């Protein structure tokens, strides 16, 4: 039963990963990544780590992927050129990846970790459930826990600063198509800013 579940989840995870790499439309790539994350959650459950599986589904497949979907919808699906700018890039990438896979597998499987060939030791019933992880986080790993919360705050502020509007550089209506009516006269632009070549009424996501 466990082997069947493992191989189903492994096939799902691999198919999702290949879908992320191979699909042209970024929206479909995000959907493939969501399938991949759900398969990984099943694998985490098989490894008796219930809290990680729940966090994977809630945080990753729930929150982060929604952010991706929003940005894909905002930016639009940019058409990617099918040809290689560097000749033979795909061939070399495939070769490098193949050797990387062989090397990692050989390094792990030929290591001296004797417990790799086993199922792992028998663990108590509460292994990896939220209570155990919470105890670890708040007792043994308290400083990394707080540091990661500060890191999340910094990342949120940084994203707002990065993606926010710049009043000095964006002429009114050049950055977004919402405020373009009535303010697109040339004298309204600050000095030193060239007018945007694209028309302000260009729909968001139109191919450039």
């Amino acid at each position, binding site marked *: 039963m466990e082997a069947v579940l493992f191989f189903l989840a492994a096939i799902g995870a*691999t198919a999702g990963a290949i879908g992320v*790499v191979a699909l042209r439309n970024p929206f479909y790539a995000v959907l493939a990544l969501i399938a991949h994350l759900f398969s990984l959650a099943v694998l985490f459950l098989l490894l008796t780590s219930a809290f990680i599986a729940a966090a994977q589904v809630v*945080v990753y497949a729930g929150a982060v992927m929604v*952010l991706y979907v929003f940005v894909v919808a905002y*930016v639009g699906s940019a058409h990617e050129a099918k040809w290689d700018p560097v000749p033979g890039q*795909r061939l070399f990438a495939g070769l490098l990846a193949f050797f990387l896979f062989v090397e990692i597998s050989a390094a792990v499987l030929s290591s001296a970790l004797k417990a790799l060939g086993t199922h*792992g030791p028998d663990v108590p019933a509460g292994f990896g459930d939220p209570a155990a992880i919470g105890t670890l986080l708040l007792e043994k790993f308290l400083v990394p826990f707080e540091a990661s919360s500060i890191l999340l705050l910094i*990342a949120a502020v940084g994203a707002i600063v990065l993606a926010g509007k710049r009043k000095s550089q964006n002429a009114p209506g050049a950055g977004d198509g919402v405020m373009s009516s009535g303010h697109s006269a040339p004298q309204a632009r600050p000095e030193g800013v060239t007018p945007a070549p694209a028309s302000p009424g260009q729909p968001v996501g139109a191919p450039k």
Partner: protein
Amino acid sequence: MNISWYIVLSALLFTIGAIGILVRRSPMVILLCLELMLNAGNLALVAFSREVGNAQGQVFALVVMVIAACEVVVGLGLIVAIFRRKLPLDVDDLRELRG
């Protein structure tokens, strides 16, 4: 199931993510492939945690998820900023830092 199956699967997923980063040129898809690689690392961490029988490796996996969330937020903010300046969303065109 032996733990080594999980490790080999993790290596395979990491490799697929590496292929995506090497081949694709849209920065958004490159971020997605980076997620694949981080998740492969997560799978290896949890598998090793199960192998040792110690739940501390799962805390490592949680921290990796936090880092991945930060990286996604900053990366998507950069993509939105690039898009607002009407620059091409192509990593082969975005070679110079200025401009």
